[in-house]
């Protein structure tokens, strides 16, 4: 996983509550067996005027000019500003892969759905929770000023505004450490292989039926 220490980037708005992962990456793209290449189809139904088909040449498709990510002022955005319950719905990690592939490194919202938050963190994307009031303020500033950017500092756990104000946010210490160092979960867990094995022995004694062969 790529490390996240601090990131300064252009902000783009996703100004609606309950953005679900179906909206982030529609189901037809889930047929891919790869982890990459989802970026051009992030928010497909909002971004394009025609229907998205897997493996189509997206550069030839008609863009929806009203969708922020298509507007010149938000080109190159790497921080998404969103509303409540961002990432609800399906567990598809493709949503996080699409965000990553598009170039987003952080999402700022008043709240996130649990599974998306966890998927994002595992892909080097930082979900930043700020209060509704703070998010309102950021939306206002973002709409008022082209080229609006923010700095998200995971070391300090702060979001720095262009006016030098810094707002702090909270993040799970385990996840913070993984992100700062770019650590892979599986490697960390396998360091505890002995503990897992010891647990498994007593678990098997207690619940032997769980370990029965499941041959069909």
């Amino acid at each position, binding site marked *: 996983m790529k490390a996240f220490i601090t990131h300064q980037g252009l902000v783009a708005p996703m100004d609606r509550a309950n953005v*679900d992962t*179906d909206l982030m990456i529609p189901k037809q793209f889930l047929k*891919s067996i790869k982890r990459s290449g989802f970026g051009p189809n992030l928010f497909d139904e909002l971004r394009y005027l025609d229907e*998205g088909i897997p493996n189509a040449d997206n550069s030839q498709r008609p863009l929806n000019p009203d969708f922020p990510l298509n507007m010149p002022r938000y080109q190159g955005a790497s921080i998404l500003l969103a509303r409540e319950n961002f990432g609800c719905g399906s567990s598809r990690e493709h949503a996080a892969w699409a965000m990553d592939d598009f170039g987003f490194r952080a999402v700022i919202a008043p709240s996130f759905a649990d*599974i998306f938050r966890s998927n994002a963190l595992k892909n080097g994307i930082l979900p930043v929770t700020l209060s509704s009031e703070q998010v309102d303020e950021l939306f206002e500033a973002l709409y008022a000023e082209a080229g609006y950017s923010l700095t998200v500092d995971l070391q300090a756990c702060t979001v720095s505004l262009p006016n030098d104000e810094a707002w702090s946010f909270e993040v799970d210490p385990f996840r913070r450490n993984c992100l700062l160092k770019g650590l892979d*979960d599986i490697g960390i867990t396998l360091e505890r292989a002995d503990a*897992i094995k010891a647990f*498994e022995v007593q678990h098997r004694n207690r619940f032997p039926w769980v370990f029965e*062969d*499941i041959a069909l």
Partner: protein
Amino acid sequence: MAKTLYDKLWDAHLVEQREDGTALIYIDRHLLHEVTSPQAFEGLAIAERGLWRRNANLAVPDHNVSTLKKEREAGLAALPDVVSRVQLQTLDDNCEAFDVVEIPLNDVRQGIVHVMGPEQGAVLPGMTVVCGDSHTSTHGAAGALAHGIGTSEVEHVLATQCLIQKKMRNFRVEVTGKLGAGVTAKDIALAIIGQIGTAGGTGFAIEFCGTAIRSLSMEGRMTLCNMAIEAGARCGLVAVDDVTLDYFRGKPMAPDGASWDAAEAWWRTLHSDDGAAFDRSIVIDGSAIEPHVTWGTSPEMVASVYGRVPTMADMPDETARIGLSRALEYMGLTEGMAISDIKPDAIFIGSCTNSRIEDLRAAAAVLKGRQVAPTIRKALVVPGSGLVKAQAEAEGLDRIFIDAGMEWREPGCSMCLAMNADRLLPGERCASTSNRNFEGRQGSGGRTHLVSPAMAAAAAVTGRFAAVSEATQDLGAGA
């Protein structure tokens, strides 16, 4: 100390608690399907890692399979959609390469992963169960700790048999009283989500309890726990009782003899202790719940079938007004209109929420001797598994559906998420027994109204949303 059911399941699977608040939790059963597993297997192969415990894993293709008999019989190689074919083939190949047990496409046991799991006894009370699918919450109906995971976690479980988790908080939802006629587990689920909202359960494990829950069959409890994720909770739970034990006794992968007795002794303890502390509790009067229909693009946008779509004046703030107007525009509805004036073009009876035998029986009871209204352009019944299909055929339910003018399909996820050819056209309106009414979920531009199977059947007969009693009054209620 008095413990909740969730606390007990958590404690029994805790490998180690870390100082940073995370824990390693041991996973008993891991279910896999074709959509969220390929990248996980690829990750293992790249890192040259093997499976921690091969026997913990069970795979089945479901999301992307064709539900047409002809296409199924022709086998995978003949599937016209190449991209789908590659994904399905990749599951077969990965299961072979990693020696994972897989129920293949045309096996009678194949079905939607959340229907197949309990049906085979692959999921049992007291287990920790995960799957790369958010509706894994379904299995909490068995008194199992079950939740959906992302693909990185699928890989993590394959390689370590553990998950890195933070303990959730306990949320108790008590549904009291006796349900009215024609009111089902689906209506309870929609009523709860309507009340607490789609983020109401975020960060919680929800335990459903109370007399109305006790009276539900295992199928009903699965429907309810299935929708826990639509309330934001990664897992739903129902305590073990005789209904649970009767359901699992004799299932192919369930223990038997002395092993069953030992299991039963543990399973009998799987309930919240008297006086256990919950972080949040609500009580809902089950006798007051009416049949529900969602009118918007989120499961919390729901009303009684006797009710109306809300108006701008009902909305508490500007964000809510924007949300309402966006939903109404997408759904092609006007504020304040009667739910019973909404006319679907399509009917979908299926999905891991409502495709079990009890669901098909409920729909067939309404459709028996009746016809699908001429305004309905497509009507699918998609059983949840090959075994559900066979049971329904043995009971003659397939004839009832076919005679009424519906299509009787092969098992799979089908129009629940429209990854295969079963989908709505732009603007098409569907009465659906699935669990998500998000924009485009059932096909780009499609409009979904979530209902119970009986309500979907009633909508099929009347051509609009109507109470079951209204749909069946021609031949006498419940005929």
